[in-house]
């Protein structure tokens, strides 16, 4: 019984920590979704930061993203730092807080494309998240998710008569898909099966997004 009392205490501690990670991850997810929504609502014509009005709107999104980083630090990172073995705890609960980190990466990648029409690189993403250590898988899976947002923006913009976005989105998604497909030949060896299935599913979705954007481009060219 003494043995099981000790075991019970250890299990309970795990349960509670797990719960805290779940909550921190969920908070980050919600905030990241809101940040993406905010970007989607910006008139895409504002994208190239041409005037003061644009700069104001853009500055506002910057604040949103600062808050996101604050949430990461005050949530998942703080919880990790409270444990004696940072790295160990990181991996023990990685699956639990992954969704939040991936959604954050998705928001960052979408914002980066919004501004520069380019892929947000791994190194740059790591720097943005620092001192939180970003795992390659969270980067890739978050990046893949951004493709859906890019597609949505492209379709909406072309419906509003702004044609350039669709072509930019098409070439962006094409490049992204090629890179991700290429890398997926390597992840197959490096990742556990469930994670690989996740990536494969996202690649299929990305292919469909690309197809939709290419159809838009084709219609625009007629």
């Amino acid at each position, binding site marked *: 019984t003494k043995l099981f009392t000790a075991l019970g205490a250890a299990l309970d501690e795990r349960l509670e920590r797990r719960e805290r990670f779940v909550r921190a991850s969920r908070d980050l997810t919600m905030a990241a979704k809101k940040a993406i929504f905010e970007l989607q609502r910006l008139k895409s014509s504002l994208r190239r930061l041409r005037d003061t009005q644009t700069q104001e709107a853009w500055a506002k999104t910057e604040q949103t993203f600062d808050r996101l980083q604050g949430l990461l630090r005050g949530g998942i990172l703080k919880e990790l730092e409270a444990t004696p073995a940072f790295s160990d705890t990181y991996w023990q609960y990685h699956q639990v807080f992954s969704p939040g980190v991936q959604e954050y990466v998705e928001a960052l990648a979408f914002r980066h494309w919004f501004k520069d029409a380019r892929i947000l690189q791994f190194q740059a993403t790591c720097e943005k998240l620092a001192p939180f250590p970003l795992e390659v898988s969270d980067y890739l899976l978050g990046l893949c998710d951004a493709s859906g947002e890019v597609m949505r923006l492209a379709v909406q913009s072309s419906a509003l008569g702004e044609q350039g976005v669709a*072509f930019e989105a*098409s070439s962006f998604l*094409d490049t992204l898909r090629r890179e991700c*497909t*290429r890398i997926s*030949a390597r992840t*197959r*060896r490096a990742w556990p099966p469930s994670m690989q299935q996740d990536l494969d599913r996202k690649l299929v979705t990305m292919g469909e997004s690309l*197809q939709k954007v290419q159809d838009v481009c084709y219609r625009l*060219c007629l």
Partner: protein
Amino acid sequence: SGFAAVATALEHEGQLRERLRLQRDELDVAVRSLETQLSRLHYEVDWSDAVAGARQQLRTIGSGFLELQSLVPEGMFYKYNDLWRQCSIHIVQSCLLIRFFETVHAPGPQFSDNLDQSQANDSVETCTAALVTKDEVLEMLDGEKAPTQPALRLDLEEYLLGLCGGIQELARLAANRVVLGDYATPRKLAFFCNQVYAGFRLLNFRNDSLRRSYDALKYAIQRLDSILYDLRI
């Protein structure tokens, strides 16, 4: 006892499968890189570079494929074939693309940036592009000359599934060539794909995955037809 021998045999099978899987993973990386190369066709007006580069990469793939298949004991091709089946299909698919663009005329002089003029020529248009044969795929992998006894092996079904995949890729390509302002290639693509599709209609499929791929072809052909129709209107 008897089980020790069985255990050893199973162990050997497991190890072989493991080695084949590793080799297949390497081949897979090369095949995906070949497809990346060929995806340049979607956004570069002049395709000669992309096709030449792909030709080059085929050699590496060929030797990797050879290495893989030489691990397989005599008579066990079909036992392990499912491991590299997807690779084979993707290779055939890429060979179809390469061969098509090598034999269709280069986009240079006869490139019609004048939509109306190309329309006028439309009813007499034919397409000289060749459909890659199963033997040609093996030649493209094995090296330049036609080998009397190819060291590589490709199942007939893999070849046909690869053709289906290639035609679908060409259908996707047609829309994107229009985006690039290339109106001539989509016509040729449509003509070519319709011809291949007509060939497929002659076949009697009792095989499920082949029949499904063939059914999917129909949509690719319809898409090509509607692109042709759009170009005409």
